């Protein structure tokens, strides 16, 4: 697939996420909202390989992959608006999006995408030779028991399952490396998986590596693990308390800052050294959150793709315009739908 086509998928996924963010900020979407901004190169580079009959098992951050898979955008937005015409009749919401025709399922339970993906792969092996399943997961989820158990199960049963571990470095508001032992790729390799690592900001690399791994799976070889690093551009969810504290310590993050200051100063409790350790840990987390890539910065996968297009003297502006029109139409259609919370 040409870079321009991959970029088009990425731009479309990004515009979708930003449209959802806009509706959410207006209060038209309830609850938590986990955007997949920063994951677009992984979504485009992997999911564009899928064929009819392939399964797709997703997480709470599922919308970029679903957009690339071709699930109707207006139906997804309608779902988030809680409309009866939504993808799931307004009953699922953004963490629980299901599209049976695409064999695509998501879950709000961290780690759950792996066993479901293994089941999709088992069904493919029995019912649809040459078909396969892809499970997207985060690196934080790889510490969940069911994820580790699936590393064993899928290898023991030689299932055609590609697990794509989208590593943004953060397990909610905790730095993943502070709660994760060893290397994730080595874990999978120890269970006999074919393992590849890729820069998840570079869509062409992701597309190439995913293509190789999926080719192996279609040929009946055992499971593969793709470790893709990428930035998390909008926090764990919109309104992420860590980012609020980092970016607005005197406003929205004020109560949190006060709690830390007051905790450190209250008599009784740990020694001075222990308290210093606690405060230093929090300061390190906040610094790392502050230094994380922002949207449209150099570390943003869309910028990486635009730069690559530029080097080939290809223009992204026309693609952006066309994508914006498509998303605007989807938003209009979703808002115009009957009923719902909006």
């Amino acid at each position, binding site marked *: 697939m040409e870079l321009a086509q991959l970029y088009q998928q990425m731009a479309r996924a990004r515009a979708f996420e930003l449209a959802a963010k806009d509706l959410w*900020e207006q*209060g038209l979407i*309830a*609850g*938590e*909202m986990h955007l997949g901004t920063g994951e677009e190169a992984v979504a485009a580079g992997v999911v564009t390989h899928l064929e009819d009959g392939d399964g797709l098992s997703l997480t709470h951050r599922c919308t970029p992959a679903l957009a690339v898979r071709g699930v109707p955008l207006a139906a997804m937005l309608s*779902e988030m608006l*809680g409309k009866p015409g939504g993808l*799931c009749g*307004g*009953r*699922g*919401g*953004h*963490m*629980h999006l299901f599209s049976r025709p695409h064999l695509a399922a998501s*879950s*709000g*339970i961290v*780690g759950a995408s792996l066993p479901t993906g293994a089941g999709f792969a088992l069904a493919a092996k029995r019912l649809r030779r040459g078909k396969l399943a892809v499970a997207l997961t985060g690196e*934080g*989820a790889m*510490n*969940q*028991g*069911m994820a580790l158990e699936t590393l064993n199960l899928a290898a023991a049963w030689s299932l055609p399952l590609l697990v794509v571990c989208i590593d943004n470095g953060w*397990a*909610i*508001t*905790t730095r993943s490396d*502070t*709660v*994760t032992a060893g290397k994730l790729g080595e874990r999978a390799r120890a269970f006999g998986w074919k393992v590849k690592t890729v820069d998840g900001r570079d869509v062409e690399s992701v597309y190439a590596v995913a293509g190789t791994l999926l080719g192996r799976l279609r040929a009946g070889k055992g499971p593969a693990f793709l470790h893709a690093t990428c930035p998390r551009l909008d926090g764990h*969810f*919109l*309104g992420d*308390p*860590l980012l*609020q504290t980092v970016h607005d310590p005197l406003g929205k993050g004020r109560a*949190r800052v006060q*709690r*830390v*200051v*007051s*905790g*450190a100063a*209250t008599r*009784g*409790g*740990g*020694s001075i050294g*222990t*308290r210093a*350790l*606690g405060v230093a*840990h*929090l300061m390190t*987390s906040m610094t790392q959150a502050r230094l994380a890539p922002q949207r449209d910065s150099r570390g943003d996968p869309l910028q990486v793709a635009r730069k690559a297009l530029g080097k080939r003297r290809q223009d992204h502006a026309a693609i952006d315009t066309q994508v914006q029109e498509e998303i605007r139409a989807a938003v209009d259609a979703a808002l115009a739908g009957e009923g*719902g*919370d909006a």
Partner: protein
Amino acid sequence: MPEMDLGKALDRAIDDAMARDDAIVLIGEDAPMLRGGLFARYGPERVLAAPISEGAFLGAAAGAAMAGLRPIVELYMVDFVAVAFDALLNHIAKLETFSGGDWRCPLLLRAPCGGWYGDGGQHSQALWGTLASIPGLTVVVPSTPADAYGLTATALEHEGPVVLLEPKLLAADWLNALGRCGRDSVRFDVPQDDDDGGNDDPLARVPFGRAALRREGSDVTICSLAVGVHRSLEAARVLSEEGVSCEVLDLRSLRPLDREAVVASVRKTGRLLVVDEDYRECGLSGEVAALTLEAGLRPRFARVCVEGTLPYARHLEEAALPNVGRIRAAAAALVADGSGETAPAPRA
């Protein structure tokens, strides 16, 4: 009393207990961020950041409790207890019996629960009935700040395992973090009544197994807990203007359950309405009905519960939860003809 909502009262009780008891450690995902005050005061050795591994850290907490620590385990939401259910069901709850009463597991599991803010069916469940069906556990759910403090303080001096659920709608930090998320553009129906449950001392211990009478009445006994208590009180105020006198009993402790308080009230009113944010089938509402039958009473009975998977859309969720309108209609029907809320076939 310092101005505390239910969540902050719970935090305060934990802080006070940690200052008293060095054996208490707190374990949870994002603990340094969520419990920054405790983290800064007690340090990383007593406030432990956990990986997203509920099965491992709840199981490890059980072992730690058996070996001399008093762990507080925090789940992000009670829904996620499913991931760690083995530790709770087969280990923590059974140790006392298996050891012939010799060994208990002094552990507090704190988990936010409930809906009313549109987070979908994997993030809005109550599940207290499921948990309270397990022998060996104590299960409590406060509806007021004073009860949150008092039940937590009791739990942290109790020798066995306690599950304490924290209704998210009544805890501003959770509602802000998960529902509002920094927005001013969303509204929530947070109960405004300043009912303190008649508790004069906001820092008093609250014993397990004792219901609280939140409102006296003579026609209908409404048994509820958590947000349901506030919705029931609101319905009772409306019903009183319509000439129906409701007694509202806050069960607050599901296991042990205050059977005597329920029986005494139902003996007086002869009508029982259970308002339960948990699932209707095979749960608390049936249990409360059964205990009145076992006591020889034959009350007119109705229940307002959650009947299916909670939908995401706010208006659908509101309709599916025990809202004031449903409670009012059910109570009025009990008084009018005894039938209560008609029960449609359960949805999947």
